[in-house]
């Protein structure tokens, strides 16, 4: 063991090659290129294969990490991909968008004295390898149970539920409101971080397992949950993010002020960055401010650069340490030239007589005592206002739950913010046979958390359908 530890210490964490910052800041291609086979094997060889792997505990879907990493070290890449898929239906996606540094990699023993194994990069490597080989092996599907399940919302939670339940022999239909399945994976996360062809491949994989998908089907309007229950044995609600939260500031409806949802949906789902080849337009600002410090804010500020902005600012009311975005996203944004105006909070948006944004007035902040979230509470410094000249602003401070299903399902209990009241361990709601998970239950969280909720709900639904 001691020898292995020494070996692992000697071999540094393998970097993943990526596009140069200056180049990539002007295109929408994916930033990292991924590991080459040899690099992946070298990185995988750093894993100590702990008897009681802490990394697995750190994963919301408990991926068998030492096993799949071990298979990569041995050069069995396809085997590694299969091992991953035993617990995670979307490894190519998780390898790219999971916050590994606060989950699996945070628990890696190697991380205590050096750098943890690059679990995320290896996950991505194995999944990409399998996809590129074109050898997607279909898992064993249990004999048909005759039970029909409706999955409302084709995002990470819904895709996970569908994948788990179809394997157990149930008849699964996903109802997706948008014209493309994937939820936040297609409308929210940009192409340069998660190529849409990868999402499509994962969706196609589910279809090949027998999952039926009805796109452009807005449950709550075309059919209610109660109506669905007349033709399905159980329902899973994973309708995700809803209306964007605005700051209730003067000038927030000026032209050039976007919610991050709209800015990203235009660019990602509707491909406005390829306007006029694609019909949907987007304001290509020269000076863009993004308000917020999460992954969505990073995605927005980096999208602004790619749309041609000369200046792209992140305006965040706390300091770098409190920023909720993944380290890698902040790092990439900085490298690409996003400027961080920290400890600053917008107080007013300024416009011209035609209703177009011309600037944002901010106040400087300082950090006080920690608040409920444990982060130090930002307080405005009196008389410290200043104006940043911008023509576009993106409000990325979160969103409420999607109102369509809760507002049309009278027996479905919600909390005071409108999120569905569901048991976090089973997804069980106030209605028999109706389960829920993901952002619609917890409010804004991560892709993998939604998938974890989907996994638990699928298990509980399976049990319910047996009974």
């Amino acid at each position, binding site marked *: 063991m001691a020898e292995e530890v020494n070996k692992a210490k000697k071999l540094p964490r393998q970097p993943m090659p990526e596009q140069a910052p200056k180049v990539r800041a002007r295109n929408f291609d994916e930033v990292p290129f991924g590991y080459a086979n040899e690099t992946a094997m070298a990185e995988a060889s750093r894993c100590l294969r702990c008897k009681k792997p802490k990394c697995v505990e750190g994963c919301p879907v408990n991926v068998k990490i030492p096993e799949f990493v071990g298979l990569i070290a041995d050069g069995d890449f396809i085997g590694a991909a299969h091992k991953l898929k035993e617990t995670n239906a979307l490894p190519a996606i998780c390898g790219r968008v999971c916050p590994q540094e606060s989950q699996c990699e945070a628990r890696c023993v190697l991380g205590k004295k050096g750098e943890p194994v690059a679990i995320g990069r290896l996950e991505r490597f194995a999944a990409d390898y399998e996809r590129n080989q074109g050898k997607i092996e279909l898992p064993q599907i249990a004999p048909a149970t005759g039970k029909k399940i409706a999955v409302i919302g084709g995002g990470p939670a819904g895709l996970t539920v569908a994948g788990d339940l179809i394997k157990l022999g149930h008849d699964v239909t996903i109802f997706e409101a948008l014209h493309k399945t994937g939820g936040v994976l297609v409308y929210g996360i940009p192409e340069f971080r998660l190529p849409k062809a990868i999402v499509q491949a994962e969706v196609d994989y589910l279809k090949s397992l027998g999952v039926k998908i009805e796109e452009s089907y807005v449950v709550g309007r075309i059919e209610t949950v109660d109506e669905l229950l007349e033709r399905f044995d159980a329902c899973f609600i994973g309708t995700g993010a809803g209306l964007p939260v605005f700051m209730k500031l003067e000038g927030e409806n000026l032209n050039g002020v976007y919610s991050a949802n709209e800015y990203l949906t235009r660019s990602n789902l509707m491909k406005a960055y390829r306007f006029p*080849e694609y019909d949907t337009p987007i304001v290509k600002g020269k000076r863009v401010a993004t308000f917020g410090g999460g992954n969505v804010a990073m995605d927005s500020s980096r999208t602004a650069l790619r749309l041609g902005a000369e200046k792209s600012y992140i305006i965040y009311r706390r300091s770098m340490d409190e920023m909720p975005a993944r380290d890698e996203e902040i790092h990439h944004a900085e490298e690409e030239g996003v400027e961080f105006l920290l400890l600053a909070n917008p107080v007013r948006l300024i416009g011209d007589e035609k209703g177009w944004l011309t600037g944002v007035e901010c106040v400087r902040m300082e950090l006080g005592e920690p608040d409920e979230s444990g982060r130090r509470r930002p307080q405005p410094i009196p008389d410290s206002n200043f104006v940043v000249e911008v023509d576009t602003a993106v409000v990325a401070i979160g969103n409420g739950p999607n109102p369509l299903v809760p507002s049309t399902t009278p027996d479905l209990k919600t909390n005071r913010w409108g999120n569905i009241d569901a048991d976090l361990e089973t997804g069980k709601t106030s209605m028999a046979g109706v389960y829920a998970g993901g952002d619609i239950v917890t409010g804004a969280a991560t892709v993998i958390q939604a998938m974890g909720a989907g996994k638990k709900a699928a298990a509980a639904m399976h049990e319910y359908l047996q009974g």
Partner: protein
Amino acid sequence: MNRIVAKEEFSRNPGVKMMQIEAPRIARKAKGGQFVVFRLNETGERVPLTVADTDPEKGLVTIIFQEVGKSTMALGKLEVGDCLADFIGPLGQPTHMGDFGTVLCVAGGIGIAPTHNIVKALKAHGNKVISIIGARTKELIFWEDKMRELSDELYVCTDDGSYGIHGLVTKVEEELLEKSRESGEIGLVIGIGPPIMMKFVCKTSEPFGVKTLVSLPTIMVDATGMCGACRVTVGGETKFVCVDGPEFDGHKVDFDEMLKRQSIYLEQEKVALERYRHSDDCGCCDECGGDR
């Protein structure tokens, strides 16, 4: 799915067209006041259109649109038998139905289409309906017969006097509200048409204190309560047209803000339209001055 089964040209310049789309589920479910979103093809944008009529038995949804931009022009080029990539709905809240006594429906131009479906619902609910339909000129008036059949009284106006009453719809609106001042017969005004017209329908009814609903044609992307593009200020609060609307109390709507927001993409719309006119899809070479 989403096949065009009937098409009619109501006016040539500007092009106003009617289409019946095969969409049985939407036809069964859509109520007065709701809208649909269409997308022409893979590169298309999502465009909201209010439902003009439905035939639940035949499974048909009627839309009427004016060719103002690339998407509506390209839609207008489709023929019977062609299909739309997406036809999504019904979206938005239906018109709230109640016992309003007499309802005065004021429709301008293309607004006649959604008004028709609302009048149909109001009548089914047992209300008396007086309708005013108006347009810039005679050619732009459509469905006069259908509106006359549904309404208890119908007034037709044109701005240029080429047909019916010479003048704006608001002139007739004011007269009727004046007449009803004593009796209080008119309990509700519904105004649907171009934003500027709706603004004046509201300005006209305000002094009479009669509640006035308007249906707002804001810019939308997902139209399912996610993006916030459609936000408007109503009574000082931000509302989302796609889920809170499309109908709002017109006396509380900030029309000036809405009008400004409607102009966000004017530049891009011009670019898209120019590009389209010079493409092979357009097929109307007379409009590009022969420089194709």
